[in-house]
């Protein structure tokens, strides 16, 4: 069982990710704010964090930077989930140490495939 954390302020998005990925392979954790995300990562050390850029309390990029600069949480794979496909955002995410990004709106099938690929077990 791998642990995945989805961080997004929209309940619908979290619900969609959960419905897409929840299975006997993945356990899904949810956070809607940056501070909740940091707390959950330190608590559970998930295998993958899907991190929205626009969060109510802070930017997802900042959360990413905080996680990657902490040796304890740095190994966690972080994929930015963003509605903005602008180059500057992607550069910011890369600079903050993100491992990849996924743009909204997204296809659940593609998301599942991507996550499976990250963990190296293609179906």
């Amino acid at each position, binding site marked *: 069982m791998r642990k995945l954390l989805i961080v997004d302020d*929209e309940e*619908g*998005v979290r619900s*969609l990710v959960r419905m897409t990925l929840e299975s006997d392979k993945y356990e899904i954790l949810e956070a809607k704010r940056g501070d909740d995300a940091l707390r959950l990562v330190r608590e559970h050390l998930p295998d993958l964090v899907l991190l929205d850029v626009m969060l*109510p309390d802070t930017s997802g990029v900042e959360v990413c930077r905080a996680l990657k600069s902490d040796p304890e949480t740095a190994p966690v794979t972080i994929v930015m989930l963003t509605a903005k496909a602008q180059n500057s955002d992607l550069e910011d995410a890369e600079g903050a140490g993100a491992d990849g990004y996924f743009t*909204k*709106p*997204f296809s659940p099938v593609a998301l599942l495939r991507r996550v499976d690929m990250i963990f190296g077990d293609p179906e």
Partner: protein
Amino acid sequence: MRYTRSPRLRAAIVALVIAVVVVGALGAWQVTAARDSQRTQIVNGELTAARLASSAVQSGISSRLQLVSNLAEQNVAKTLTDTRPSDLQSLVDEVRGLYPQFETLAVDSPSGVLLAVSPKGEGTPGTRVSDKPAFAGAISTGAPYVSKAFRLSGDGPLVIGLAAPFFSGKTIAGVIVCTIPVTILGSIMGSAGLQSGGSIVVVDQSGRALAGPAVVSGATYVHTQAAARALHGAEGTGTATLPGFSGNRLVAYTPVLGLGWGILVEQPMSALNDPIGTLTVHLALIDALVVLIAVVTAVVLARLLGQLAKERDEAAAVMASVGEGVATVDAAGRVVRLNPALERLSGHTTASARGLQWTEVLPFVDDRRQALAWSDSVVARAMSERRVVASHGFSRTLLSANGTSIPVAVTAAPLTTDDGHISGAVAVIRDVSREREVDELKSSLVSTVSHELRTPLTMIRGFSELLLSRKDLDSKRSKEALEHIHDSSRRLGRLIDDLLSVSRIESGGLRSDLNLVGLRQVADEVLVTLEPAGGERVDIDLPEGLPTVLADPDQLFQVLTNLLSNALKYSSGESRVNMSASVARDQLHVSVTDEGIGMTPGEAAQVFGKFSRVDRPEVREVGGTGLGLYITRRLVDMMGGSIWVRSKAGEGSVFTFSLRVAPADDGGVVVKEQVYAQAADR
């Protein structure tokens, strides 16, 4: 706009007036000078004529006197003495026959008795002639003598006597007297006349005129100064009235030497006035022409200067009234002028800025807050590149003298002289604060709308794809997915409605159709639609017998929906939302009270603005376009009411709006139209 007359124009007019006066004075001086010169010329001519006449008279008379003197000195005299009186007559006749130029020839005794006269009959021998001027003169001087004019008989012609004594030893033995008619003077003077008009008057020692028109009247010149001076041997010219002539005459006088006579030459003043008059007329014409040219020039010049002054004033008025900052600089980049708009913008005045460097007066910074060098300024570039140069976008900020930073757009154009030299530049500096706000608002709109569009789209697409691709979803999850799709599509619908509302409000396409409306009825309808969003938390607390209000029912519905759903959105699920109403004079105040997150005074001040969203996590968590309260305010405005908020952060908010109470019963239709008209005016 007022035009002031230029001081230069006034100076030009004064100069022209002076020029006209000077030309007039010069003309007058020329006339006077010409008159003097002409007068001198005329009187000099007269004097010359007088001298010529004098000389002719002197030589003519003297030569005749010489003849008489010769007769007296020659033996003729002795012969006469020796001759018997009876033979004397024939001798005299004989001699006179030799000298026909003498009118008469007489011989008198030393005692003054006429001895003989030829022709016979011009006198009676034996009569006394001692009182005759010729005889008297010769006896008293003992020498040849020319007498004044006299008449031989009472009505005889005027003659001049030429007398010479003859001697016997040293005693006078007798006197020979010859007479010549004064008329002979005319032929003596002959060609000594004047070239132009006028006449010559010969005056004898008694002042009697001997020749000329004056002779006829027998005028005497004794009292004429010119004649008196000539008789005293003086010569001169002048203006005088002369006996026998009318009016003032130009006179020259000279003596006839040896005779004690004088010559006067006179001409009428017209001799002077006629040519001077012509000259004066010519000069006056020339002067008039000069004055005319001067006046025409003055008028043209005045118009031209007036035009220039007007254009300059117009240019100044344009500079002064243009709303954008305008500055002119010289070729060295020194400020020449700032218009009032730029003075306000920059905090400098033309007086304080003139002559200072451009960058000193108007320091610009770029978007990285770096000071802009002179060579990078659009003004310097406009001059060096000889073309109009403009700053890009919002890249320039002006640091004003009073410390504010103003985003500006700068456009500069070079000023070129006629020969192609760059004499400076003119720069237009526009305050683009408003545009920058609009630009930021636009970015905010794009960002908000794209976020608000993408989120529901993500869910619609994601959940529908899940439903289509995953066969393993149970019915509970399928329903959940469908509910998300449904909610998202409604959310999209609301967003589009809001955007359309804003667009229609802003373009003026939305109007209030005011009707008599009951508040409770509308509130109940709203409550029904709010049920899924927590409508059960709303308490409608309206007193009985509320008056009907003037409102557009659809718009009132939207206002209440927005206020109540906001109250529910920004408060916890346990708290209550209250809606109440009260009458204040002719207004109904409707309040929506929540116990939600509330707002700071700063947030409350902006809450009715477009895309205004309070920037706090609790608010961002809820989501929204920031258009709801803006639309609400505009709708309330349109219905003739107003809206305001009382709020405290962390404690909740009270939004209150007012509506007009409908007048009781009668005239409802009329009132409706009036209110509609008022609402439309806003």
